[in-house]
């Protein structure tokens, strides 16, 4: 018996919640939960956790494009069944982890994973570029300013050597959000790729009365740039609509979220911004926001070479210049952001100077700064 459309409420079950976590954990995890003494990364992507009972849990971490098929997940299940007593887990950065309770089983697991082409790259641990957390982009979202899976694939291809090694000064967390809604919450990442719009919304006067609650669209604008207005639709009829003060628009897209008759996406208007220097962990220094260093790069599918190149440059300059343990933001603060722009050869523009609310917090209010190429006009 299954769903009966004639009696949709008959036998309906609601509010079950997820399965309890301890019904789906491997035995070595169940037995040693809360008893772990220490861990060690044996090689990139391979960890051992040692329990006070002497038990060991070997974990192999593999990358994933996050957008994965049921066939791919079934293959993961096959691997878990063959080596891991039928269990696996996913990390908060979209990697998958396979766990075993012995070195021998772990070696067999690694051999199996390596025999499956490039589907399950091993890595993502320690001082590496781990998997990029990202959003949906053009594959599923209605408000994106760029794609997500494509640029992520292109950037990870370029930085692949850093996924499977641990030679950076610290971990580099990259994230991509395909519009300013930031479903991916990229605002505290070492490197954040952010889809941005640059054209104000259009007004579809044929549809606005049908699909929009105009007061909602008006109140959605943080800058009061959307005002009620009468307009003429394509039939020559007067309709209740809105007008947008383009001068005040900051291209956030919040109006479109509330009103589908105000589309703002555009092939030339949209593209990618790059923000750097954020972190979440409290270690050494407080969590930091990512800062806007590249205001715009064009959308250049299929492989976004401009974006890939800038990320490549930042990671490589950082890799050479930063001290052990220093995250990108800590490094940039130590050398000074003026040096960051110079060393990374990123042109500094007025777009990196905040002129939104609380902007003053980011302006320099000291006479202490470093001379760089930016001050040549004054000093040379």
């Amino acid at each position, binding site marked *: 018996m*299954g*769903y009966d*459309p004639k009696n*949709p409420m008959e036998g309906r079950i*609601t509010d079950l*919640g*997820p399965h*309890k*976590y301890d019904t*789906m*954990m491997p035995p070595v995890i169940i037995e040693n939960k*809360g008893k772990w*003494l220490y861990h*060690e*990364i044996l090689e990139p992507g391979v960890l051992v*956790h040692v329990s006070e009972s002497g038990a060991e849990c070997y974990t192999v971490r593999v990358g994933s*494009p996050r*957008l994965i*098929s*049921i*066939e791919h997940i079934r293959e993961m*299940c096959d691997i*878990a069944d063959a080596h891991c007593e039928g*269990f696996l*887990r996913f990390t*908060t950065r979209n990697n*998958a982890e396979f766990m075993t309770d012995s070195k021998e089983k772990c070696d067999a697991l690694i051999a199996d994973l390596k025999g499956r082409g*490039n589907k399950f*790259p091993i890595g993502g641990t*320690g*001082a590496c570029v781990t998997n990029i957390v990202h959003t949906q982009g*053009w*594959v599923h*979202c209605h*408000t994106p300013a760029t*794609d997500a899976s*494509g640029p992520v*694939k292109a950037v990870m*291809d370029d930085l*692949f050597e850093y*996924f499977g090694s641990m030679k950076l*000064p610290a971990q580099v967390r990259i994230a991509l*959000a395909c519009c300013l809604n930031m*479903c991916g*919450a990229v605002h*505290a990442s070492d490197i954040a790729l952010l889809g941005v719009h640059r054209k104000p919304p259009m007004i579809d006067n044929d549809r606005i009365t049908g699909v929009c609650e105009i007061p909602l669209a008006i109140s959605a604008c*943080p800058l009061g740039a959307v005002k009620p207005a009468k307009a003429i639709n394509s039939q020559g009829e007067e309709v209740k609509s809105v007008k947008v003060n383009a001068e005040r628009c900051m291209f*956030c897209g919040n109006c479109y979220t509330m009103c589908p008759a105000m589309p703002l996406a555009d*092939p030339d208007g*949209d593209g990618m911004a790059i923000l750097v220097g954020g972190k979440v962990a*409290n*270690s050494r220094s407080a*969590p930091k926001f990512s800062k806007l260093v590249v205001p715009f790069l064009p959308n250049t599918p*299929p*492989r976004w070479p401009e974006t890939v190149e800038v990320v490549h440059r930042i990671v490589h300059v950082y890799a050479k210049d930063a001290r*052990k*343990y220093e995250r990108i933001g800590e490094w940039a603060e130590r050398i000074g952001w003026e040096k960051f722009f110079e060393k990374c050869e990123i042109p500094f523009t007025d777009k990196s100077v905040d002129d*939104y*609310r*609380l902007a003053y917090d980011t302006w320099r209010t000291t006479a202490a700064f470093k001379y760089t190429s930016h001050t040549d006009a004054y000093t040379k």
Partner: protein
Amino acid sequence: MAKHDTPMLDELEKGPWPSFVTDLKRQAETHPDCWDILGQLELSYRDKITHWKHGGIVGVFGYGGGIVGRYSDVPKQFPGVEHFHTVRIAQPSGMYYSSKNLRGLMDLWDKYGSGMTNMHGSTGDMILLGTRTENLEPLFWDLTHDLKQDLGGSGSNLRTPSCCLGESRCEWACYDAQDLCHHLTMHYQDEIHRPAFPYKFKFKFSACANDCVAAIARSDFAVIGTWKDDIQMDQAAVKEYIAGNYPSNAGAHKDGDWGAFDIKKEVIDLCPTECMWMEGDELKIDNSECNRCMHCINVMPRALRPGKEKGATICIGAKAPILDGAQFATMIIPFIKISKESEYEEVIDVIEKIWDWWMEVGKNRERVGETMQRIGLPTFLSVMEVEPIPQHVKEPRSNPYVFWKEEEIPGGWERDVVEFRKKHAA
């Protein structure tokens, strides 16, 4: 046989990172609708713009969350993705799965959906990507009856809570993040499935200050593990690190050319509070100066461990930039015991104090962090019945415009200007 030519996407089959395009093509062999996903995405790559449109009204009856509607704006070209709704499935705490459960979910999605998923979405749910409106109720029926599990949250709901893996496989966990997360997820099923608030509300649970779920950056209610006694220290293990017998940072820097481990440079000098020093070959910590940032513990996991009296710090009000700028969560409760025995009553009390206030005072589409910012931290602290302490601020305010209350001033605010003028000519 490919249904559409995808020359641009084919470029994304090259390179060492696993390719979602290759995967989609593999899935298309049994799920031909995947050709239309590829076809429409190729069109977006050509046009440099999305071809999905606003969701409209879809969901399962009685739930205000868990399904996000999505339609193609070119359905004639790509009928397989005409409807392409998202189904959010609540993930188990810590994201451990049995292959049996995953296979069950995949069979369900084989039957009703496109064959594509996200493992996982940003909030933490398992995302099933792309199904038709008429499949939603049957899918929900099978999900609840056969797999005994449920949808996650969306809209103005409590979003599906998420946590790090906590004690299950981490020696740094200061509380059982999985259990707290699961308990509250079950306790608040109504708030997860039906709208309850002015806007979304997110719980995230990190069992230490390394904060692997980014709770402090993106949750309205962040519970971050900590301790209140001394860092546990094993001097014999300290010596092993100094001798180079244990790898620093648990081996995280193994491939770098960083030279021998230098405890002064890598631990003592990087301590933000400068509360560590060596006495002979013994490491000393002035724990009263420690701010529990985790750096030294991260670097020497076999020598240093969090203290024994564990609990959590509660930080409130983080959000992404939309609209007035990003906010990190503000530290409100320095230490709270996370007690399974009391069924987390202490934590629930804090949550419901926030909700009662925010539901009343919060504006529509205002996250609690924005309400706190608008109303002010002093008021929020008094609502929370928390005494203000220096730990609530990075530094004291530098502007002098204090909102004094009348009852704080001797004689109150009522004065007689006529009496005043008798002594002070105008």
